[in-house]
């Protein structure tokens, strides 16, 4: 029974840490499927988390915070779009630049506006997302096996958590069942053909970048308004890169993305839980190994040792209309 409760607790924290990964990886899905590499997921998420924390602290409204997160993240996405789509600069260089500008400015602005060492003021009440409790969650808690699964694992998360998981089928539907999605995928594989059909490659890619901005906005807002009570400097701590790894690990497919994010989230949760506790049979596993595992797995996958990850064909190449 004790083991069972441990597992439930582990899975619960897996879900908690996977949410920002899912949002960010889906964001990357939209841009990369449209042929725009996005190293800037980390920066967009961090900028959104800061905007959410700052605006929610000042206005006291969680929705204002969420809106600010989305606006900032979309604006950063548009900078990336302007540099890499309109000016045809290197998509990777532009993403790296955005990450640095955001990493620096969130600390400087946070310190100048709130003077709490790069934090935003702690949020409470209406300024923060509240957890949702499903009906009868308390009543069925003591039912063996199914009780804890229902009351701890399924119930008691934030609205954004459920929304993140809902975004997986929604993204699938948009990409594979709508005209916009078909064109978006086409523009990532063969932009010339899309252009020939009389559809603007530029505008399509901009729309993809905006979609990614919105999703990264949710990821950031989740970090500072739900998972934590406010913004802490550098709080994304590489999650944007893990999301990028998950995106590749999932071979640019929505449902695989959810599974990859859950796997990486599980490793993260496990690393925290195993700190100082030896594993049965294997003995003490260095925490650092657990933390590095998502990256190692991605490298192994990219090397083609577990299946083959084939990126969208036109990814990373700015589109030049024939002159």
């Amino acid at each position: 029974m004790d083991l069972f409760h441990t597992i439930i607790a582990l899975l619960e924290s897996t879900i908690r840490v996977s949410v920002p990964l899912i949002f960010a990886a889906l964001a990357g899905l939209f841009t990369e499927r449209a042929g725009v590499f996005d190293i800037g997921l980390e920066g967009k998420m961090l900028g959104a988390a800061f905007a959410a924390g700052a605006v929610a602290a000042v206005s006291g409204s969680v929705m204002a915070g969420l809106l600010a997160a989305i606006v900032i993240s979309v604006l950063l996405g548009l900078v990336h779009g302007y540099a890499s789509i309109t000016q045809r600069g290197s998509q990777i260089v532009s993403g790296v630049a955005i990450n640095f500008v955001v990493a620096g400015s969130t600390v400087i602005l946070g310190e100048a506006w709130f003077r709490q060492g790069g934090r935003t003021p702690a949020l409470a009440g209406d300024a923060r997302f509240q957890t949702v409790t499903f009906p009868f969650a308390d009543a069925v808690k003591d039912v063996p096996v199914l009780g804890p699964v229902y009351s701890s694992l399924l119930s008691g998360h934030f609205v954004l958590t459920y929304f993140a998981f809902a975004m997986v089928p929604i993204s699938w539907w948009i990409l594979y069942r709508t005209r916009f999605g078909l064109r978006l995928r086409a523009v990532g594989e063969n932009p010339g053909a899309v252009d020939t059909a009389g559809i603007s490659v530029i505008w399509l890619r901009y729309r993809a970048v905006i979609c990614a901005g919105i999703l990264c906005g949710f990821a950031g807002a989740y970090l500072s308004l739900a998972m934590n009570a406010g913004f802490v400097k550098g709080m994304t701590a590489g999650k944007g890169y893990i999301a990028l790894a998950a995106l590749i690990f999932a071979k640019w497919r929505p449902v695989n993305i959810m599974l990859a994010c859950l796997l990486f989230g599980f490793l993260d949760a496990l690393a925290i839980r195993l700190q100082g506790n030896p594993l049965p049979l294997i003995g003490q596993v260095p925490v650092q190994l657990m933390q590095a595992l998502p990256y190692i797995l991605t490298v192994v996958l990219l090397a083609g040792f577990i299946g083959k990850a084939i990126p969208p064909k036109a990814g990373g190449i700015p589109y030049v209309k024939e002159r």
Partner: protein
Amino acid sequence: MSNPYAKLPAWAEYGLIPLVNLVVAFLVAGLVVLLVGENPLNAAYHMINGAFGRGEYIGFTLYYATTFIFTGLSVAVAFHAGLFNIGSEGQAYIGGIGVALACLWLDKTMPWFIVLPVAIIGSAGFGALWAFLPGWLQAKRGSHIVITTIMFNFIASSIMVYLLTKVMKPLGSMATQTRTFEAGGQLPKLDWLLSIFGLNVGNAPFNVSFLLALVAAFGVWVLIWRTRFGYEMRTMGHSPSAARYAGISETRITIIVMMISGGLAGMMALNPIMGEQFRMQLDFVQGAGFVGIAVALMGRSHPAGIIPAAILFGMLYQGGAEIAFEMPSISRDMIVIIQGLVILFAGALENMFRPAIGRAFAAIGSRATAAAQTRGA
């Protein structure tokens, strides 16, 4: 891809355009300073004074510049072969192992000029090893170098945390660092070099590795523009298909270039470990690998551009500390913003002002010819 822009004179291409991009980056940074309620001109004054106002400050500026010359060269070498090595950070970090091992092994028995060559080989070797895998994976397995080097940065950081908490830390010590090196593991300062100019280096850790960085810069210039291998890698960087038709082995070039790039990044570790702290600490690279990206982009991947760009960033680091002291609301994170803006304007947006500058040159050119014609008539 065809070059859609008119050809500009060399001084405009290599001088004016980077300068315009840099000025715009600093103007935007100035806006951030305004946003936090400080005067950008004051900030600029404190920065320049803090970087060059005294011999000691100049020593610190050049100390930081040494680090950035190495990482800038590392990124630039890869750029020439069309490879984007974001992994200089991790390669420098792993390179530290080579320096630390050499010093821990020899520092008590040998003088510094014996330890230094061993440390150079160690740092370059470990850095090259860490870059070999991404290079090999790109060349043989087709995995994207940008993604693998990002992943390798994180893996490197995990390895170093493990090594410094479990393996290389002296027994009974709490701090995550190696023991302090004896005299053999400490590089002499270049106080004589500054005293030629009548400056006193003071406490600044400006050391011999600066000269090594200059030698490395010259070596890179020779490699890229004066050797057959350099020609091959530039060919591959310009047009992989042309390189293939010419019978140049992409696999060989990719792997060797990545190892050179990793070796240069690894040598950066000499400067902080043997030149300043005399021990290997957690996180000693402090983002220098990423600064290398900005330095290489600003220096247009040419050693003659990288050295001034590295000194500029050295000035930002040293002067930035001075700003943080004088204006508490502007911490050293300001440098990270400037670094990002330089990468944005000198890298991703490098073509933004080119059409306008090209038009201006065309207009001046046609007016000059018109004037010459009227004079001739």
